[in-house]
């Protein structure tokens, strides 16, 4: 840093800027902090007025998230043997007994299967297409690339009706495979555009050298280009995963039981007399956590990923 730079902000303006941004960060993170906190509150604490900032932590929300519970008559309740496990005790303290498992685990697994499945497929197909667009003379290249991008402009509901009909005919509705294909189709535009940008940056000379050494195109692609593109592929994969992870419109329209993912499920968690907010918050926290971690890992590629590579930092 040059000491004489006349455009360097003054110390005071830096200070003011720092305070304002910190203030914004505190306000903007409050709802997130509140979700995490509510997950560790007991039922009464979560709905007390004024809102409780200091509270006794409880795992009630998490236990309620993974179980279904039932109330017994006073008499039956007293005749029960003493609780055996810590989570039994938490449920008993609420005046209930565990009746079974909730569907959260299953819904979360669906999110994992569909998210990773569609990510793998988008990256596989996307890398091939991106490589071809980056290195070869594809006829109508610009038109095809624009076509791929434009599929992202469509409101999901605009194609949901025929997809619904098509899936019903093909037996794909409410299946993991159906959702994987669908999310792959939505993500592939992002994958092709982003990966093309990353591959464009790998010098062609590497491959040319490999070709001269007697590699075929396939070998050069596999042994020279792919290893060079690993970071880009990883970043793209996480963006595809985050999208599939968070998607709601298709999930709510096309799945009902078997393949339902977590986003349509979490809001339906109901407790006695209304939504069980600690359980909802616990579910939300578990669901949001991977994305928060990925965001921190991704910060270098963030801008490119969210703008299809249209803006580079």
């Amino acid at each position, binding site marked *: 840093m040059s000491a004489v730079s006349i455009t360097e902000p003054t110390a005071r303006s830096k200070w003011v800027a720092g305070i304002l*941004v910190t203030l914004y960060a505190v306000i903007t993170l*409050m709802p997130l902090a509140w979700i995490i906190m509510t997950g560790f509150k007991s039922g009464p604490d979560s709905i007390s007025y004024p809102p409780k900032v200091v509270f006794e932590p409880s795992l009630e929300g998490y236990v309620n998230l993974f179980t279904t519970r039932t109330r017994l008559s006073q008499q039956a309740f007293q005749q029960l043997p003493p609780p055996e496990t810590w989570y039994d005790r938490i449920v008993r303290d609420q005046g209930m007994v565990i009746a079974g498992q909730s569907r959260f685990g299953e819904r979360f697994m669906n999110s994992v299967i569909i998210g990773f499945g569609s990510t793998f497929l988008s990256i596989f197909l996307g890398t091939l297409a991106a490589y071809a667009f980056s290195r070869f003379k594809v006829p109508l290249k610009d038109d095809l690339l624009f076509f791929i991008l434009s599929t992202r402009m469509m409101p999901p509901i605009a194609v949901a009706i025929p997809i619904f009909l098509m899936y019903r005919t093909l037996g794909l509705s409410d299946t993991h495979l159906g959702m994987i294909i669908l999310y792959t189709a939505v993500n592939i535009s992002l994958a092709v555009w982003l990966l093309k940008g990353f591959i464009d940056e790998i010098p062609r000379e590497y491959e040319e050298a490999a070709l001269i050494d007697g590699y075929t195109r396939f070998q050069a692609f596999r042994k020279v280009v792919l290893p060079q593109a690993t970071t880009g592929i990883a970043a793209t994969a996480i963006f595809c995963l985050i999208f599939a992870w968070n998607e709601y419109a298709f999930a709510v329209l096309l799945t009902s039981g078997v393949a339902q993912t977590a*986003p349509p499920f979490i809001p339906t968690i109901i407790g006695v007399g209304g939504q069980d907010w600690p359980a909802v918050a616990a579910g939300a926290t578990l669901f949001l956590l991977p994305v928060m971690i990925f965001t921190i890992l991704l910060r270098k590629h963030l801008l490119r990923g969210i703008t299809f590579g249209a803006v580079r930092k």
Partner: protein
Amino acid sequence: MTDTPADRIARATPPAVARRIRGLSDRAIAWIFVAPTIFLLLAVNIFPLIWTVRLSFTNFQANRPNREVEWVGLRNYERILTDDGIWANMQATAHFLVWTIVLQVILGFALAWAINRKFRGNDLLTTLIVLPMMLSPAVVGNFWTFLYQPQIGLFNYAVSFVSGVPPSSFEMLGSVRLAPWAIIIVDTWMWTPFVMLICLAGLRSIPEYIYEAAEIDRASKWRQFWTITVPMVLPFLMLAVLFRGIENFKMFDLVVQLTGGGPGSVTELASINLKREAFEKWRTGYSSAYAIILFVTVFGLASIYVKALNKVKER
């Protein structure tokens, strides 16, 4: 120009032939690599879109597949374009779009401007600020209904703490006047970081020497801001507006969870209304026409806008 025998031989054996000896030609590889993607998009995007167009001219109902389907021509389109209810949805959508974009541009630009001062710890703060936009809109929207509870919610409590109005005196989600603002606030909360990131990229792309030259010419800071910073960031800002515009025109998940379109239908944006027609009332033909109208609108507006954007870029 003389044509030597060597030239003729070179032309007779194009490099592709030489390469084919060691496997497939480049052209074939290009096709094999691109084909699956194109096929997938045709099957899951274009084919359904054409199907939607076809359905839009009929009175088909997806919940009654055995009923005889009648060809109704443009009647669905006519009914939609003359329906006052749909114009109200369009107005609600426009209101939502305009306000979210205005607020996000102002806040996002201001934040980027401040972060660009390069104070200590700004990288960490940038990462934290960006978190909301990476989360699931449906899950977040659902949780905001809790924050908006008049009796127990954090939002009302915070507002009353600052303004002195009792928290239970206003209901963000239940009031016809406030509900549109409730969704605007959450959308702004989620997406301001997006505009901020793009503005930041814009600010960082301005070379320092331009400011130095302006400083030598004794241009005031204010003048530098309007003649250098704003025009240089404008193309970036317009791109951010394009992305947000397209996304918010399609807005569904956040609003479904927050208000479900209510109270009454004041927050019933176009895609929520469309979902209701298609999957609750099962008026498939009618809602297909509706979907096509929406798609053409987004596509048309986006194309005009991109033209304007390119003009700004060329300047």
